[in-house]
């Protein structure tokens, strides 16, 4: 796992501790902003240029005006999706960092977060308690619930299904992960069916979340989108701080870079690996809640597609690289949303939004042909 933050130690920099800490905490904010703005600008320029070249459609519509008019909305939607992917991708990349294996059950950890968030909201709604809740508190509550359950499930999965196989050939834990994935899907389906007699769950409408703010004529942002983006940014900063500057985070990085030597430092490797699953799982759970808030209806099989895409995002950014996972998530979110929004405009409906994944993944394949280690890949090599 790589982070390029140069973290201060308490021991050396006690005097400038606070300013150093703030820097470690907020430096990634600038990075996130640059990537988001950069991706947005590049893709916007591409679509605007295309619209200028193919300005008039066969039915006489001015494509340029059309493209421009929905652009702000497309960018906001891209950010929402991108940040959700980034949060899920972190779970894949952190586990890959310490164990060098792909935890295919992570998409179900994400789904469990979404289901827990839905159930908490539904229960509150059934108890007629939703209106009395402070909206901010409500958000914190459902995210915390999703994080707690997903984090714990991830730890249990590691303990039961991966740890006994740690010294087995590489493919064995991978198969175990796929098995866990199916198991969790059907376990959630069974539990929901017994409890609620239904496994398609819909996030109840919270009036204060459904409000929208309008900026001019072209941009109309729902509170939900703002909540998702803000919550995701807070989570990403918190994770960056945890991994970059705390003792726990450093021990996780040490285990990722050299497991045997980490144990010689007195680090309990099993515990560090369990912590990695806890942190990655909690982030995945939070992403699940945010995804559910934004897209409303979820079911036990909801996790698969976002999971695969977030895995792709992690590979795109450079698997094992934490900063890379964030970048990959943002880029993939943008590519997909731009594809969904503009494909039909340019192809006059021949290829609609349903082809967005072909576009997004096509571009990914091209990127990976030229940069097989991902956009960020290995930054600092080992010497000697």
């Amino acid at each position, binding site marked *: 796992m*790589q982070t390029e933050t*140069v*973290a201060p*130690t*308490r*021991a*050396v920099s*006690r005097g400038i501790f606070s300013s150093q800490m703030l820097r470690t905490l907020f430096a990634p904010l600038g990075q996130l902003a640059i990537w988001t703005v950069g991706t947005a600008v590049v893709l916007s320029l591409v679509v605007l240029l295309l619209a200028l070249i193919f300005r008039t459609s066969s039915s006489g519509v001015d494509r340029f005006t059309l493209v421009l008019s929905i652009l702000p909305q497309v960018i906001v939607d891209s950010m929402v999706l991108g940040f959700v992917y980034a949060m899920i991708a972190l779970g894949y990349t952190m586990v890959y960092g310490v164990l060098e294996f792909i935890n295919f059950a992570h998409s179900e950890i994400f789904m469990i977060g979404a289901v827990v968030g839905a159930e908490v909201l539904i229960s509150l709604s059934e108890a007629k308690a939703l209106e009395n809740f402070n909206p901010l508190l409500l958000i914190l509550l459902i995210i915390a619930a999703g994080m707690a359950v997903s984090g714990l499930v991830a730890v249990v999965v590691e303990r039961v299904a991966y740890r006994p196989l740690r010294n087995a050939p590489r493919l064995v834990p991978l198969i175990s992960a796929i098995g866990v994935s199916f198991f969790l899907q059907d376990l959630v389906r069974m539990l929901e069916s017994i409890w609620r007699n239904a496994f398609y769950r819909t996030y109840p409408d919270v009036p204060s979340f459904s409000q929208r703010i309008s900026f001019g004529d072209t941009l109309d942002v729902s509170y939900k989108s703002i909540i998702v983006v803000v919550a995701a940014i807070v989570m990403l900063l918190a994770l960056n701080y945890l991994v970059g500057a705390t*003792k726990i985070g*450093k*021990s996780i*990085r*040490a285990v990722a*870079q*050299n497991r*045997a*030597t*980490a*144990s*010689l*430092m*007195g*680090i*309990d*490797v099993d515990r560090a690996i369990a912590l990695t699953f806890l942190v990655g799982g909690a982030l995945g759970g939070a992403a699940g809640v945010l995804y559910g808030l934004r897209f409303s209806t979820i079911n036990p099989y909801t996790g698969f597609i976002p999971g695969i895409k977030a895995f792709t995002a992690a590979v795109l950014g450079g698997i094992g690289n934490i900063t890379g996972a964030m970048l990959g998530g943002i880029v993939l979110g943008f590519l997909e949303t731009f594809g969904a929004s503009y494909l039909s405009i340019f192809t006059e409906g021949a290829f609609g939004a349903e082809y967005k994944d072909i576009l997004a993944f096509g571009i990914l394949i091209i990127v990976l042909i030229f940069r097989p280690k991902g956009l960020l890949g290995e*930054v*600092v*090599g*080992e*010497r*000697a």
Partner: protein
Amino acid sequence: MPFFELNDVHTYYGQIHALKGISVKVEEGEVVTLIGANGAGKTTTLKTISGLLRPRQGTIIFDTHRLDQLPAHKIVAMGVSHVPEGRQIFPRLTVLENLEMGAYLLNNAAEIQQNLDHVFQLFPRLKERVYQPGGTLSGGEQQMLAIGRGLMLRPRILLLDEPSMGLAPVLVEAIFNIIRELNQQGITILLVEQNAHMALQVAHRGYVLQTGRIILQDSAKALQANEMVRKAYLGEE
């Protein structure tokens, strides 16, 4: 009762019988060296002591504690610090973070700072490079970092595995001076070396290993004079 003792230790890699009954004693304050050719079992011995490998038979006792059934991270907590072969620093952690990892078991900031100052005093070079990722250091600097990291816990016994490997002669000299200095500060050292010539100069006693067995043990002086050792390990005719 000896300070540190391996008694008839047998270690296996799967089916391969790597250590065939190793018995080594180290008294407090001593420098003891294990010498031998490649594959003799020197590194395996150290790994078995520090818990990276588990002996199938035999006991390892350190200051009245049994080490042989403990996991590696608990053995370090006893004050046994292993500086592994090939340095094994964390390449993407900074020099400072590498050293902090060495002090992972300490929680007192003042104590960590004190040990850090001690390491910087031994290796001023590391202080110049605190914020540089470990992987960008030269081989000699990485060796200093590996030793410094091993000292961050103020160990009572230091296991050094091939500290001179791949270093320029002037650096080899420097590393051996550090070993002497550490020993004068009261740290007991078990040193594994291929450079038997240097090792026998700093050590008080030595053991000669061959294919998983100890074939000779004596004071360093006597080993330097031993004809078999001179021929096989000191490269003299």
